[in-house]
């Protein structure tokens, strides 16, 4: 009976002669750094790390990998930025790590939220009228679902794209 090898044995055997180029090693190192940064950001967003602890861990990673954390961290922050979510935490992080003036971003968020609310309110009012006039349905218990309006998703996407564009512009100043 032939020798039974574990999966790890097989992988080690097949990769014994493989080597990475200098560039590949560097790319792998940067990816690992990026993934760790994203992990710290996620733990901070989830409330597992305080702002101080997150900053400390980011500094530790910077020293461990000997890489500039700021460009990647900024990218991850803006990727995670949700104007309807817990964005204040991200603003705090920007202010702490980048000493950033986040006024422009906050204004962009307020403008987005106001536009979104006005748009959905208008859609809801129309839906309420339609429910009453076409279906005989009304009352204080009725809350129209604006997402059933076929034009809403397209409008929301346009609004979101506009916000993202403004956000990146503000981010460029940091």
């Amino acid at each position, binding site marked *: 009976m032939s020798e039974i090898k574990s999966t790890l044995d097989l992988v080690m055997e097949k990769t014994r002669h493989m080597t990475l180029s200098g560039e590949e090693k560097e790319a792998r190192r940067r990816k690992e750094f990026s993934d760790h940064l994203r992990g710290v950001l996620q733990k901070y967003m989830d409330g597992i790390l305080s702002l101080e602890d997150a900053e400390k861990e980011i500094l530790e990673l910077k020293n461990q990998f000997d890489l500039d954390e700021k460009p990647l961290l900024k990218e991850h922050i803006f990727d995670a930025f949700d104007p309807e979510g817990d964005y204040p935490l991200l603003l705090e992080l920007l202010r702490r790590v980048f000493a950033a003036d986040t006024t422009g971003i906050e204004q962009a968020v307020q403008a987005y939220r106001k536009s979104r609310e006005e748009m959905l309110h208008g859609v809801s009012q129309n839906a309420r009228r339609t429910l009453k006039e076409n*279906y*005989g*349905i*009304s009352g204080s*218990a009725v*809350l*129209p*679902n604006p*997402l*059933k309006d076929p034009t809403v998703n397209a409008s929301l996407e346009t609004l979101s794209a506009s916000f993202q564009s403004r956000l990146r512009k503000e981010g460029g100043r940091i």
Partner: protein
Amino acid sequence: MQITPSVHAFFWESMTENNCNTYLIDGKKKILIDPGHLHRIDHVERGLSSLGLGMGDIHLVICTHAHPDHMEGVSPFRKAGALFAFHEKEWELIQAMSQYIEAGYGVKADALAPEFFLTEGTLAVGDQKLEVFHTPGHSPGSVCLYLPSEKVLFTGDLIFKEGLGRTDLPGGSGDEIKESIRKLQGLDVEFLLSGHGEMLAGKEEIRANYDFLDRYVFSYV
């Protein structure tokens, strides 16, 4: 079975297979409450047919909550032109569990989105006026519907005859279900129609049922 001039019940009576009771509120606009499992929609079709009605005659389907044994059967009514509504908190639960719904039922959560949500307040549908009560506990967005003109209370899985809904499913809460039940006790009700099991008929039977729950069940929830 006709309960009142406007209310008809399609009771699910099998002891070996689960499904819910379905109710029809007749009027200028016909309202169906809790169509049940999709694969047993024939039960509702037969009930409607006995009244000379078909799926296309239903204007609005209301689900007391979004569990599949109450809500699965909505789709053929929607295809036939009915609108659909449930509580907004139930929609939040569906969205939170969308990956499991898609994996288990092959249905995207967006396909379940209702035309409108219910919140606590009054609901006028044609010539019928209902009161909607938000009664969480069995699920976060469970509602009860009260038809004051005929003193009928539809409770979904909040209350049963000598029982109450389970609270161990996602979003369930023992404290909330008790609070929800207490909230309804002051209503003037002659017929209590629940999601499963027999109806309660008459003020005295309904009052006795509340007493029973309070005395023998609440301390275990």
